[in-house]
């Protein structure tokens, strides 16, 4: 029976002709847009996750503590809620780090009369303090310590990146939804043509007492096939775009976002997009209700 229904659906698809092709292309567009935004958003999400792990807060000290006082200072910093770890960086260590950063221009540092850099404690916030509010509270607590001159750093920029990621997801969903609506309407139009073209089959089916499901299922299936075809094309387009674009922009992405590689959509994402295509098509097919005859 399924073979018959599928055969009828394929026959209907051929009948719908160009309108079916338009519907397939619209499904392709909507899913490609959705998938494209999803891809970018997923990679931004990865970058946000990585950067959250790397966030450091620098606690600059008023004066370099005596070696004997150091363990006690670190202990007090460590005791501040929201601190995962604390590492002391002496003025000499800071200068060495600066030289390393300057590289071949490190000689500039040697011409300084004295070491201008303050000693500091490098704090890694706990996971619970990796949000803007919690990070602000942590900074305030650290500033309250008597030895502290100034506290720098935070998670604000990571949060801004995260906001961008959320914005992209929202835009992606919006664009995808508008295109999906257009795709549903086009599948509905294509199916309405099919309903008209197969009115004689439908009349005979009703006349011989075919169950309503048998009459409606080919319409639903042909809509679903349009959606599936659109989804497969969208995935192929996304895959092709990824393989062309990703190698070209990966160096830039690595430099700016710290991601060594751009990840493609996961198998679960791909499955979700395919199912979304089938669902769009099925919905369009279902909405095109032919006039029910007696």
């Amino acid at each position: 029976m399924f073979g018959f229904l599928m055969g009828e659906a394929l026959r209907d698809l051929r009948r719908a002709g160009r309108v079916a092709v338009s519907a397939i292309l619209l499904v392709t567009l909507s899913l490609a847009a959705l998938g494209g935004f999803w891809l970018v958003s997923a990679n931004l999400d990865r970058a946000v996750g990585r950067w959250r792990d790397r966030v450091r807060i620098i606690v600059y000290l008023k004066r370099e503590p005596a070696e004997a006082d150091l363990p006690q200072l670190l202990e007090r910093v460590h005791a501040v809620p929201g601190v995962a770890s604390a590492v002391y960086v002496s003025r000499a260590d800071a200068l060495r780090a600066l030289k390393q950063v300057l590289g071949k221009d490190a000689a500039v540092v040697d011409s300084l009369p004295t070491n201008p850099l303050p000693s500091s404690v490098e704090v890694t916030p706990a996971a619970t303090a990796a949000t803007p509010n919690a990070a602000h509270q942590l900074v305030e607590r650290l500033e309250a310590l008597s030895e502290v001159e100034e506290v720098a750093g935070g998670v604000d920029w990571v949060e801004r990146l995260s906001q961008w990621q959320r914005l992209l997801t929202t835009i992606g969903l919006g664009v995808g939804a508008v295109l999906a609506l257009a795709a549903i309407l086009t599948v509905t139009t294509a199916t309405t043509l099919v309903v008209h073209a197969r009115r004689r089959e439908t009349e005979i089916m009703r006349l011989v007492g075919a169950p309503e499901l048998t009459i409606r299922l080919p319409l639903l299936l042909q809509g679903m096939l349009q959606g599936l075809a659109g989804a497969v094309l969208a995935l192929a387009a996304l895959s092709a775009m990824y393989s062309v674009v990703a190698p070209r922009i990966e160096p830039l992405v690595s430099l700016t976002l710290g991601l060594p590689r751009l990840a493609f959509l996961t198998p679960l994402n791909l499955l979700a997009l395919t199912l979304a295509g089938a669902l769009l098509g099925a919905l369009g097919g279902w909405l095109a209700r032919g006039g029910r005859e007696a």
Partner: protein
Amino acid sequence: MIELHRVSKIYSVGPVKVPALSDVSFRIDKGEFVVLAGPSGAGKTTLLRLLYRADLPSDGEVEVFGSDVASLRRAQVAALRRSIGVVFQDAKLLPVRTVYENVAFVLRVLGTPRRDITARVFDALRVVGLSSRAQAYPAQLSQGEAQRAALARAIVRKPPLLLADEPTGSLDDAMAAEVFEVLRDIWTGGTTVVLATHQRRVAVALRRRTLALEAGRVVKDEG
């Protein structure tokens, strides 16, 4: 098998009421061959449509296989129609399918196992004398052949009741005679046949029970 009790049917065309059947009562038993005779507009098609529940009576009761057709739900209507074969003046063949595919279509729609379909289709085509035209398309058939193909499609499920609405209306005498011969064969095979025709001489020639309809009323029940 079929029983009508004081059945009336009125079509509403906007504010205008058009009576198609008025106070019609009769009974058809299993195994009968009944001719519904009458001029165009007498109510023959309306009467047949009530029997396969394409329409509902405005008044009265239509019983088919012991059920009041007006009270049937959608699934029960489908079940009723699976027991009734119907042919029309227009053969209503699917133009892009061969004769074999047209007849098989009905079986496939109803979920008949694929292995049974070929044998049953050729059985039906043999009854109507079209075995050799199985691979022809409707456009390649004469009108008489097309009507016989429609008959094959109607009987391929071996329904106990066959309703034929002017099946020879557009055929010449020779072709009409072929179709009547096939109808007679189907009837002798045990199927109850109700044939609607406006050709009075057909009714006479068939020498079967004839219900004469005029202006929506049964004016004669003879034979």
